[in-house]
């Protein structure tokens, strides 16, 4: 096909009266321009007023882009698929309904009216479903054409929007559990960005790209397009379903298929470009956008593969501006730059004039935009990101201005709308914009509140520190609008959530956010939602003063983690340690294997949260290294190098700290977030029984919930013995991890029980064994977090005691030892030879511990 086939929309002769179809398209494009202008205004206003990101994204994607897709996909499908002409009236009605739906979604969400938003979503989904069905129905009636595959791409895109839009509707309905939100959001974004927009763009580019380059379509495109769609469609469906279900590898597989399809479609794209080098503004803009799309798809695939399902929505968030500006924005602007002159028509001279107008300064604009795009996605300094946004905004404004001028110029010799209608429309748009500005942020005049806003606003600076929030109390008069400028001054992540649901994003060290709490009508609490931080004291109170203060009561937030038992957590006291262990319980293997050969040890340790039977019949949620309390025992010789890959499979930040290595803690001991990993490499320069533990604050909480383990580095002269055991003594705190009760117990140093190797009285039920006359070595590490130990074996004497790197007693010394005392985080070993067969209990001889779980037995046989 030649380029003229697509350009049949142009007016061949200026003397001909303007055709209504072209004018209709000009009007439809004016709608797109109007939404683009709204987006530009919203971005500009958002800079100083903090409009929510949601609004910007949806003004652009749902307003401008969806309108453009519905209008143009129909036009292309009709032209290329040789479909019968659509009914003009129906098309207009559909576009009107679409825009009403979009307006309802935007207003419903901005004004906090979920019902309106859901109705809007349903309208948009319905319109697109209708549009898709019409395309397919008309395609069935049409003669088979060479470009029929385009319709299939559009149909798949339409199906994607129906799915993605429905997910969006669920999200704005506020009727699904909050816990589902991250997954639904991820599925929603993928369906709409990769499906509705991505598939439409790819389907269009098969023919639009050669047309823009004014060259022929390369051979074999039709077959390739069908193949690619056969990969992309099911791939995307799988990815969206798996993201919604939280099935990571399904999502990765689906996205791989999708990425393969994108790669396949790049083949004719590149071949066409090589045949005819791009030289015009639309060609370069489209080429740039396709590059960003490829970047975005690749980055998305990586992020989905490396992030737990619930974190995907947050993880891909930085990609959204990149997709918006780099891909969607440039596709839209590039296509409009090419198509607007064609649509506006007016003869070859006018076409050239319009094109020249739209392409004014395009090289500079294109370079600026593509330099700015990565800056809005990457973590760059704020001023740089703001500059980048300003550049993008300027380009959008310039384009809207140029395109509007072009449309108005073209209108000069057409029937212009009546001044009254134009004036009313413009006035309404101005008013609507002002209203949007006025009601942005919580505490709106439309949001019904029991207490009238008194018009006062208080702004308070709030600092998040190490387990503190400063100030702890903020006093405001009832009806005051409260704004908190929150800064994280700590070295780890925090956030702030208020009792009324307003919250900041998770803030890294040094980051700030403005939290609009809204009109305060009653006292409320604010706290950090990171695990355990609230219980450790990261709490603040907003207290209402003044005579008309409403008595508090309703604000006691049900999300308080501390007062409900964790499912599967038996909160029964530890009184009955003589009971039987559950049938599924397996003792932690205390038998210590000799140090493996070699001087390099590679270990993978994964942090995760699970459950464990911590005392007979008592199952408790625990935080673990490699799924057990204590974590795996590492053993080596002096001088050995340990390379530990530490992976966080949990749902909160964790870190790791090996006492056996000496190094700067800054990097290896840093807290990593779920899904992240780090490498911790240390040389064991000195012998000892070393503790390792989670390095994330509050460490009391992380260690109290089980995140500790032992590293055994043999002294150089260590003799082999008949049996070697390792016991890590720790404490058991029952209850919901991180709850106020549990944290209080930890702070008071009042565990529910003590345990050797994670289970109170565990080795009463699974005795350690040896034979009479055997030499037995017991390695001990006191993990605490609160208490040490005084390790004693009833009926035995130690002839060897090695504590904290030194022998206190050797076999040939005349003396003996009865107990090994260790403060928290100390370690060592004892050796004894059992004189005869029998049952020898081993205890922490501090009997507050010994009779409360720090107890086990040696079964010594003949």
């Amino acid at each position, binding site marked *: 096909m030649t380029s003229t086939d697509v350009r049949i929309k142009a007016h061949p002769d200026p003397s001909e009266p303007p055709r209504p179809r072209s004018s209709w398209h000009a009007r439809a494009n004016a709608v797109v321009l109007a939404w683009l202008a709204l987006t530009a205004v919203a971005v500009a206003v958002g800079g100083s007023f903090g409009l929510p990101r949601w609004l910007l994204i949806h003004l652009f994607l749902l307003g401008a882009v969806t309108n453009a897709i519905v209008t143009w996909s129909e036009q292309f499908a009709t032209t290329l698929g040789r479909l019968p002409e659509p009914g003009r009236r129906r098309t207009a009605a559909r576009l009107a309904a679409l825009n009403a739906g979009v307006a309802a979604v935007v207003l419903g969400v901005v004004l906090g009216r979920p019902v309106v938003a859901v109705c809007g979503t349903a309208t948009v989904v319905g319109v697109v479903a209708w549009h898709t069905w019409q395309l397919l129905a008309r395609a069935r009636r049409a003669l088979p054409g060479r470009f029929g595959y385009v319709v299939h791409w559009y149909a798949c895109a339409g199906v994607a929007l129906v799915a993605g839009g429905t997910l969006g509707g669920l999200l704005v309905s506020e009727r699904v559990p909050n816990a589902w939100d991250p997954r639904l959001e991820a599925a929603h974004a993928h369906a709409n960005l990769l499906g509705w927009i991505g598939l439409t763009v790819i389907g269009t580019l098969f023919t639009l790209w050669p047309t823009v380059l004014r060259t022929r379509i390369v051979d074999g495109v039709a077959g390739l397009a069908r193949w690619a769609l056969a990969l992309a469609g099911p791939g995307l469906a799988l990815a969206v379903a798996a993201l919604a279900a939280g099935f990571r590898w399904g999502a990765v597989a689906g996205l791989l298929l999708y990425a393969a399809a994108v790669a396949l479609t790049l083949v004719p794209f590149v071949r066409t470009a090589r045949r005819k080098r791009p030289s015009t503004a639309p060609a370069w803009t489209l080429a740039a956008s396709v590059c960003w799309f490829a970047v975005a798809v690749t980055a998305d695939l990586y992020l989905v593969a490396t992030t737990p399902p619930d974190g995907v929505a947050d993880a891909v968030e930085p990609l959204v501006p990149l997709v918006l500006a780099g891909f969607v924005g440039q596709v839209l602007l590039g296509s409009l730059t090419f198509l607007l002159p064609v649509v506006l028509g007016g003869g070859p001279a006018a076409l050239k004039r319009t094109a020249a107008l739209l392409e004014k300064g395009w090289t500079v604009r294109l370079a600026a935009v593509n330099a700015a795009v990565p800056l809005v996605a990457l973590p760059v300094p704020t001023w740089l990101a703001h500059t980048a946004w300003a550049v993008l905004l300027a380009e959008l404004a310039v384009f809207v201005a140029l395109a509007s001028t072009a449309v108005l110029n073209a209108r000069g010799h057409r029937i212009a709308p009546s001044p009254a209608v134009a004036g009313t429309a413009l006035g309404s748009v101005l*008013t609507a914009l002002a209203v949007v500005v006025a009601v942005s942020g919580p505490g709106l005049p439309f949001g019904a509140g029991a207490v009238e806003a008194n018009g006062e606003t208080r702004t308070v600076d709030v600092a998040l520190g190490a387990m503190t929030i400063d100030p702890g109390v903020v006093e405001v008069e009832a009806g005051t609008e409260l704004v908190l400028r929150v800064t994280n001054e700590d070295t780890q992540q925090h956030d702030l959530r208020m009792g009324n649901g307003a919250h900041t994003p998770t803030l890294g060290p040094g980051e700030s956010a403005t939290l609009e709490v809204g009109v305060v009508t009653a006292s409320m609490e604010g706290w950090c939602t990171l695990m355990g931080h609230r219980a450790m004291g990261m709490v603040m109170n907003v207290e209402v003063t003044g005579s008309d203060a409403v008595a508090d009561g309703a604000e006691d937030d049900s999300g308080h983690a501390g007062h409900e038992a964790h499912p599967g957590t038996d909160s029964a006291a530890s009184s009955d340690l003589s009971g039987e262990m559950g049938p599924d319980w397996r003792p932690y293997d205390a038998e210590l294997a000799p140090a493996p050969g070699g001087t390099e040890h590679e270990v993978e340790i994964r942090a995760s949260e699970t459950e464990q039977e911590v005392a007979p019949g008592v199952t408790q949620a625990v935080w673990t290294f490699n799924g057990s309390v204590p974590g795996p025992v590492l053993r080596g010789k002096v001088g050995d190098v340990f390379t530990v890959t530490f992976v966080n499979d949990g749902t909160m930040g964790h870190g790791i700290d090996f006492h056996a290595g000496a190094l700067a803690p800054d990097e290896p001991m840093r807290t990593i977030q779920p899904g992240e990993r780090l490498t911790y490499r240390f040389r064991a320069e000195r012998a000892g029984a070393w503790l390792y533990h989670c390095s994330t604050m509050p460490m009391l909480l992380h260690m109290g919930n089980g995140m500790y383990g032992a590293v055994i580095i043999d002294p150089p002269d260590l003799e082999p013995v008949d049996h070697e055991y390792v016991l890590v003594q720790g404490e058991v705190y029952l209850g919901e991890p991180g709850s106020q009760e549990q944290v209080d117990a930890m702070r008071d140093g009042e565990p529910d029980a003590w345990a050797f190797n994670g289970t109170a009285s565990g080795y009463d039920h699974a005795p350690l064994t040896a034979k009479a006359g055997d030499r037995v070595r017991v390695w001990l590490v006191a993990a605490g977090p609160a208490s040490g130990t005084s390790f004693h074996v009833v009926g035995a004497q130690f002839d060897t005691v090695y504590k904290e790197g030194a022998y206190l007693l050797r076999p040939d010394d005349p003396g003996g030892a009865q107990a090994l005392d260790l403060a928290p985080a100390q370690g060592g070993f004892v050796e004894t030879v059992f004189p005869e067969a029998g049952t020898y209990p081993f205890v922490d001889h501090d009997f507050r511990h010994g009779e409360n779980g720090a107890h086990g037995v040696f079964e010594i046989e003949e």
Partner: protein
Amino acid sequence: MTLWTLVRFLHVLSAMLWVGGQLTVSLIVLPLARRRLDAEQRGAVLTAIGKRFGQFTVAFFLPVQLGTGIALAWHKGVTWASLAEPGYGRILAAKLLLFCAVMVVSALHGAASTRGRPRFARAMAVTGLVASVGVVLLATALPAT
């Protein structure tokens, strides 16, 4: 009843005259003029009305509106920073922006009228009218204190 009641009364009265006057001209005077007057007369009358309205705007409406408006804002303790804060400040900011837009549109209307571009002038007049009703809407949204 304090001095500030009087200031607010002046502010509302002046706005009422301006917006109400425009509405009266657009909804009552114009349709009647179209029906009852021939083209020449109509042009002369409407031009005269427009001129008089422009004079009223510059000589009375703007000074009173700006003077009382600034005074009321000062009385209420509005600062530049507070304009950005959600609630009262932001509604006021939106109202001021919309008011500026109305003034720009009115100026365009005046310029278009004198340069003989009646269609554009008419469009600007309607835009200004609709947006000034928007200003009134935002004014009523400001919590009264």
